[in-house]
């Protein structure tokens, strides 16, 4: 029972269709309070769709055909739009890739932070304003009184992302979904934002679902990682375990393609041959089969289930025994 309470967000068998193709297929994972759970994968693997689905913000073309999303025991998939509005920004928040574009250019940042509070707590302007000021201090923005009256165009991208984090956390949500939160920022700013997120998670016990394609970001901040490929989870494990013993060929090749500091200059980087299959050409078997160096006959006909290979470490591959040889640099 105590275990069930610690789980802030549970996603079970989430399947999202666009035009009849399952672009997210049977995705399951859970996030504990105060934990950073990373969803990693290349563009189009369904990680951002998964993020939007959690908030009920999927574009019109995409529909959830199966699955349950449970936040603190509350089944979000059963909620009406009106009920979902009370959850968004309050118990479940999201920050986006483009912080500057995510702010209304004609409203002061103070008004936008305060709005996130007043919409869920019917309080007066001055109280919401004081709360907004507290949040600016919490996200490490100097001179908060002046910043409150400024417009988004007067702030840098990193500053805007701090504002977005302040908006997302002002109602103290259980879980924060962060969709590529540092991708649009300079590398030095990225590190600051990641540190900030890490600190806030520790202080407040907020669970984070971190959507990223950047293994460096994963290594910096994540506690656990789910590697997604073509709409499915290929492997899920605690972060040290995943980096040390990747058990899916995609994970192994992905890790091998990350240049390390010992990478000799001007040498070609390791790549994975081929491309992600188009959504309308997904076959019966493993979705990675066409690019997989260790694939066998079974991989074409039968999709491998996620199987536990170590405590908390599961991978969806028929030939896990052959993966160790691929790890190369990563191992």
């Amino acid at each position, binding site marked *: 029972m105590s275990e069930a309470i610690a789980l802030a967000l549970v996603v079970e068998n989430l399947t999202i269709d666009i035009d009849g193709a399952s672009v997210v297929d049977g995705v399951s994972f859970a996030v504990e309070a105060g934990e950073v759970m990373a969803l990693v994968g290349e563009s189009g693997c369904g990680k951002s769709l998964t993020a939007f689905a959690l908030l009920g913000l999927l574009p019109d073309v995409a529909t959830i055909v199966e699955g349950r999303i449970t936040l603190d025991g509350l089944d979000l998939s059963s909620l009406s739009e009106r009920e979902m509005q009370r959850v968004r920004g309050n118990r479940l928040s999201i920050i986006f890739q483009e912080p500057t*574009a*995510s*702010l209304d250019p004609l409203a002061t940042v103070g008004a936008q932070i305060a*709005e996130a509070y007043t919409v869920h707590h019917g309080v007066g302007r001055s109280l919401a304003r004081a709360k907004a000021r507290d949040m600016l201090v919490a996200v490490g923005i100097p001179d908060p009184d002046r910043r409150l009256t400024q*417009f988004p*165009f007067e702030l840098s991208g990193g500053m805007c992302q701090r504002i977005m984090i302040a908006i997302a956390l002002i109602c103290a949500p259980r879980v924060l979904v962060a969709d590529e939160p540092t991708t649009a920022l300079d590398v030095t700013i990225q590190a600051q934002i990641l540190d900030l997120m890490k600190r806030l998670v520790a202080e407040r016990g907020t669970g984070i679902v971190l959507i990223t394609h950047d293994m460096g970001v994963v290594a910096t901040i994540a506690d656990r990682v789910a590697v997604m490929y073509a709409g499915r989870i290929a492997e899920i494990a605690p972060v040290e375990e995943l980096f040390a013993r990747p058990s899916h060929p995609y994970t192994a090749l992905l890790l091998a393609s990350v240049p390390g500091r010992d990478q000799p200059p001007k040498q070609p980087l390791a790549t994975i041959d081929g491309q992600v299959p188009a959504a309308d050409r997904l076959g019966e078997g493993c979705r990675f089969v066409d690019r997989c160096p260790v694939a066998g006959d079974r991989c074409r006909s039968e999709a491998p289930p996620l199987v536990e290979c170590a405590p908390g470490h599961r991978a969806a591959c028929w030939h896990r025994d052959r993966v160790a040889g691929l790890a190369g640099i990563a191992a």
Partner: protein
Amino acid sequence: MARYVAGRLLQAAIAVFGVLTIVFVVMRFSGDPTLLLVPEGASQEYVDALRVELGFDRPVVVQYVDYLGDLLRLDFGVSVVQRIPAFDIVAARIPYTVLLAAGALFVAIGVGIPVGIAMAIRRGGWLERALAGVVLTGQSMPTFLSGILLILVFGVVLGWLPTSGAGDLDTLVLPSVALGALSMATFARMARIAIVDELGKDYVRAARARGLSLAGIVGRHVLRNAAIPVVTVAALEIGNLLAGAVIVETVFAWPGIGQLAIQSIQSRDFLVVQVIVLLISFVYVATSLLADVAYGMLDPRIRLAR
């Protein structure tokens, strides 16, 4: 902001000066202006005498300086037909046209903006299709036709409203609707496009993620952002309303400057026409200037720029 407004004022001044010059050039170089002013069949002696009296025999440069000087003193000349200052003739008509333009603008904005908002929010639904029919009608019906149809339906058949002349407020209704219909369609289309455009932006998705309802997002964020392009259109529409007033005032026998323009052209009262052209041009420039200033006040990126 001060620098922005100063820049726009300078542009407006240049535009007004350009208009004055074009009017002068058109008047002097489209033939002998004296001939435009005399009644048909006037004697050559009379024409020559009038030419000297009006100074058209002097060098063009002298006439131009003189003309600008007169305008600076707000001296627009004396109507050859009525023998009273041309400006006074026009000024007597201005209140009627202002009233008509205000009525038309009220119809155009009061109907057009809500229709545009409804179309944007109910995109793809039956309401949008129904309203699209209204907009298309307003947009495609020429004013002289819609004016006559309005007279026929509401004046003749139903007998609800007076159909000509200016008097009580009820005389204003039909001309305002006829004149405002086209602008209504423009406002509706512009508002719809601007709002749909804004609804697709990232900050709307972020506002939804904060827990706002669609109505809340539109009311608090989208309308203000969408207002910027619409305000610009509004300014141009005021100019178009004045141009459209020429037809509507004729159809409804409305004694404004549009009707006066037609009458003055028919009676070859050239100086009165000149005043009207200058006046309408000035209004165009002034409303564009106002739109630019309003634009700056709405957008902090301009308002706060130094």
